[in-house]
């Protein structure tokens, strides 16, 4: 099985790719000008910021360095395309011949190209509306080699890619559209325009099953374009007739060749790789760490900040706690008090946490119960319930009763109590 992807995401620029209209308008058709409306006489002018982000993505995905980059016209007729051609990139794209490493392999990146988004089509029952606010919004298209060979790899690739893009400032929730190419047999089937990871995986699953059945039955798989039906969770042949795509590319003569040498590249962050490293170094679960940091800059930055001075388990617990109450952007110097408390086994409640977040005076947060007090309490409970020892020998879960008694009384993490309890009981 061979899977290749074309991933489209919107770039995080304030203005459009070829004009100075804002990319953040809400009222339809308010962020438009002669350029993004394709009015006769208007000419494109490149948003250099888009070039910067594009080059940074290319670098993060290990692409060969290109000294220059240029644009082409891709001609086709559709109501959402104001000039009847899209300004995009082909051979001279901002990124070429890169790869993205996942657990089991390197997935080749054939090309990374900048292009303009067409207008948005809003289909109503008996008419269609067009919103040109989206026309000219910068997109980056990432074209992979057909190197993905399982659902597992597909999922991993998408997660890793999204994480890298997230750390480069791309709003991955805004637009994440994929054309999925799958071939089990000789012929390639393309499923166009799937939005979101869940749908991509569902479409892949359906298509693999469909092609598998055809092959088993000795049938040929038609080379075709299909679309994904979200409601039915299935793919279906597109109504458009199948023909060799002919876009008649020519160089975009209104733009020049752009040097990429002076571009200041953003430093890529490979959160997944870091999570793996820390998991091994500090002996914590890689899965937990990844979940925390893949799409969370603040979480990663807290972990990096605290990892030398504090116990990783307490850091994770603190980050989880802050994440629960949306306080991950807490100032680093205030974080210190929280970490000290958590290390002592004290888990501040929401109120205390919010005081810590604001930097207000907190009475009990740092004054954690120490091990001595806990030990004393544990012994107290045992003394009151002598049978517990016998029960514990038969079933260690009986200890939960003691832990429960103590966490009722103190703001302390159950894990810490059970650790103390184990020590006492074995000692």
């Amino acid at each position: 099985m061979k899977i290749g992807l074309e991933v489209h995401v919107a770039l995080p620029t304030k203005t459009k790719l070829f004009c100075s209209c804002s990319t953040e308008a809400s009222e339809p058709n308010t962020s438009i000008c002669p350029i993004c409306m394709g009015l006769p006489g208007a000419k494109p002018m490149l948003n250099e910021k888009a070039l910067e982000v594009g080059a940074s993505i290319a670098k993060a995905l290990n692409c060969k360095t290109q000294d220059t980059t240029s644009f082409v016209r891709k001609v086709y007729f559709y109501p959402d395309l104001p000039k009847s051609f899209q300004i995009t990139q082909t051979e001279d794209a901002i990124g070429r011949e890169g790869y993205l490493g996942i657990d089991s392999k390197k997935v080749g990146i054939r090309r990374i190209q900048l292009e303009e988004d067409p207008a948005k089509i809003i289909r109503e029952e008996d008419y269609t509306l067009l919103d040109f606010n989206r026309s000219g919004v910068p997109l980056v298209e990432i074209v992979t080699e057909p190197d993905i060979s399982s659902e597992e790899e597909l999922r991993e690739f998408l997660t890793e890619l999204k994480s890298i893009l997230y750390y480069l400032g791309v709003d991955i929730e805004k637009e994440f559209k994929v054309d999925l190419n799958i071939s089990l047999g000789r012929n390639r089937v393309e499923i166009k325009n799937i939005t979101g990871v869940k749908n991509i995986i569902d479409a892949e699953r359906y298509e693999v099953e469909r092609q598998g059945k055809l092959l088993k039955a000795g049938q040929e798989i038609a080379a075709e374009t299909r679309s994904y039906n979200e409601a039915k969770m299935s793919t279906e042949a597109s109504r458009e007739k199948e023909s060799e795509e002919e876009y008649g590319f020519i160089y975009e003569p209104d733009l020049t060749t752009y040097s990429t040498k002076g571009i200041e590249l953003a430093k890529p962050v490979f959160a997944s790789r870091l999570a793996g490293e820390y998991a091994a170094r500090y002996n914590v679960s890689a899965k937990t760490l990844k979940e925390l940091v893949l799409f969370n800059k603040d979480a990663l930055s807290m972990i990096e900040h605290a990892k030398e001075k504090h116990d990783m388990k307490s850091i994770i617990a603190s980050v989880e706690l802050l994440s629960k109450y949306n306080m991950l952007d807490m100032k680093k110097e205030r974080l210190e008090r929280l970490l000290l408390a958590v290390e002592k086994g004290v888990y501040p409640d929401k109120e205390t946490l919010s005081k810590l977040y604001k930097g207000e005076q907190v009475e009990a947060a740092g004054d954690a119960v120490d091990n001595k007090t806990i030990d004393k309490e544990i012994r107290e409970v045992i003394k009151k319930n002598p049978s517990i020892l016998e029960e514990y020998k038969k079933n260690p879960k009986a200890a939960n009763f003691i832990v429960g008694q103590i966490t009722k009384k103190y703001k302390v993490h159950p894990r810490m109590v059970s650790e103390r309890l184990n020590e006492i009981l074995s000692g």
Partner: protein
Amino acid sequence: MSSIGEFEGKDIPESYYPKLVKELEPINKRLNAFLTISNPEGGFPFSVKDNICVNGVESRAGSRILKGYIPPFNATAVERMLNSGFGFLGKTNMDEFGFGSFGLNTEVPAKNPFDERYVAGGSSSGAAVATSILKYHVAISESTGGSIATPAAFCGVVGFTPTYGAVSRYGLIDYANSLDKIGVMARSAEDVRIVFDKVKGSDKYDTTCTDAKFTAKDKKKVFIIDQFTKGVDEKILSSFEKLVEKFKDMGYNVENREIRLAEKAIAAYYIIAMAESSTNLAKYTGFKYGLRNERFDEHYNEFFTKARKAFHKESKRRIVLGTMVRSASVRDRYYSKALKVRSLLLDEMNALLKEGFILSPVMPILTPKMAEAESLTPLEMYKSDMLTIPANLCGLPHISFPYAYEKGMPLGAQLITSQFNDYAIMDMVSKWEKDFEYRFKYNLGEL
């Protein structure tokens, strides 16, 4: 002898402009130079070729398909003219989208003011006629393959096409973006210089526009190119030889040279021009501006197709050929090869232009009558551009100027120089003008 200087030295009453318009209107009805006429609020009158946008004024590049398109912005060149105090007089007639050498590919062709039976030349037919009939006026015009030089020659005016990128193309309704150049027509080289100085220079709205320093390097040498005299009408050649003698008298060394690739220039030019124009014309779908199809209940394909029937035959020909030469299966044979020819031809011409100027007739044929021009096959029409295409294809500055009158009709010659040496050829024509008497049939708006 600058008419701009002369005009500005005088006290112009407000009543001058309505009188000018009144004088112009009936003659324009006969000659079809202007598509729209406005009453200037003041300043030296200038006209704008119809493919250059003027805010609030219908700008349709001589095409039916853009009927009713009123741009909400000024082309940079227009903006700069207005800011320099010039007065907008109107939009001038042209071959649809600039596709033509005789001004015939339009609804109502402009006529030659020297003899109305003859063509005015194209594609900037109206600009040349306007310049030829108005005493105080300059034309903002545009050339892709010879659209300034040719009509200027047929109408006996000076036509200047600058280095590619010298004047911003923002607001120009594209023919072929890598070849389109906004230039000037006037009644003297000095007027050309004054206008060029106002409109040139970089513009953030046109990436290909340059802020280069333009020079006036006189080379003291003039080349006559074998390929630029071969196939030229005998009558033209004999008077052209007299012009060459005059340049010798003016102190230039004249040498005969060859430009081997010149013969390939027409093919390369039409391939690039058609490839680019077929993409530029794709946007005309009768949808958001211009000619509108009111039936919205059809599939978009039918809707677009219906609107696109409004193109002139020549435009349809260029769409078909242009789409063909850039299609994947033949792109390398045509489009890619044409780009190579352009770059090699530029090398060859640059080598020559380092040493001197190129002088040649503008057209290989005498001004044809309307009917004669109409009977030409497309290929014959394309071939008539053989002398104007090499400089245009390479983006080299050139200036067309009248040098003789053959049976009352003007003949035009052109000087070509190297990129950015634009002022040098204006200077040469200024020198030439000292001993040359321009003839005009009309002098509308005389003071």
